[in-house]
């Protein structure tokens, strides 16, 4: 979803390559996101080959933003790591 957030739209192949997921996993994940109305899907053709295009819905964008804020709030008390405590 983060990849879809930073672009207007992308097809199945592009998202699978970006995420490293297999086709089966991608189908499963995207189906759930489409069912939850976080992602909109459009099936079309390009150069006589099927193309499935995904776009984030407003609900999906809001969800990403809220998730980002929640993660930020969760990590805020930890602050920035102290280099002397960092293992190499």
């Amino acid at each position, binding site marked *: 979803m983060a990849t879809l*957030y*930073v672009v*207007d739209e992308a*097809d199945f192949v592009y*998202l699978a*390559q970006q995420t490293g997921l297999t086709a089966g996993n991608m189908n499963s994940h995207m189906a759930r996101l489409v069912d939850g109305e976080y992602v909109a899907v459009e099936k079309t053709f*390009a150069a006589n080959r099927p193309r499935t295009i995904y776009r984030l819905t407003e609900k999906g964008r809001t969800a990403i933003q809220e998730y*980002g804020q929640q993660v930020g709030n969760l990590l805020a008390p930890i602050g920035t790591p102290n280099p002397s405590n960092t293992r190499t």
Partner: protein
Amino acid sequence: MVTNSPELKELEQRTYKATHSDGVIDVFVGVSMVVIGVTWIVIPNVLSGVTAGVAIAISPILAWRRRFIEARTGYVMFTEPRRLWERRIYTTAAVLFGGFMLLARPLGSLQPEDIDWIMGPDSLVVWLVAAVLLLLSVLTKLTRVLVYSLVLTAAGAVPFMIATEAFGWPLLISGAVIVAVGSALIRRFVIRHSQIGTQ
């Protein structure tokens, strides 16, 4: 350009850079420079036609590149601000490159006769293009564009080093380097995306 958090901006930047690491435009620009360089060496007065030919050729190259990329990596459309930014970058770079080619001879003829050949038209053009590439490298954050800028800067000194009055050597040498880098990128891209995407 995109979103509100630094992490998502970085993701958008990385995503955009990843879609421009195929090397096709590098090869096209490098070949253009080699062609212009060779033309200048062989026929020093033929300039405008070559520049025009290069400018005309770029549109089908970009369309072909899009099909070449999408067949392997899938389709993506970036946001409108990013697309607008990209159009402005390409247009500005093309106008500056073509303008420098056209101005090279008149500017070169203005130099006093007692100044060494290092400031000849071809050195001047190459250094102007190097400055544009330096700016592009900052805007696009593509490291190899900075390398191209340095190569062009070094190549601009070639006429002085080999004491030649033949135009075109800096462009020829720089173009050859860029073609080599672009070809290596294309090879890496094709190997990485060897199976054409299916869905």
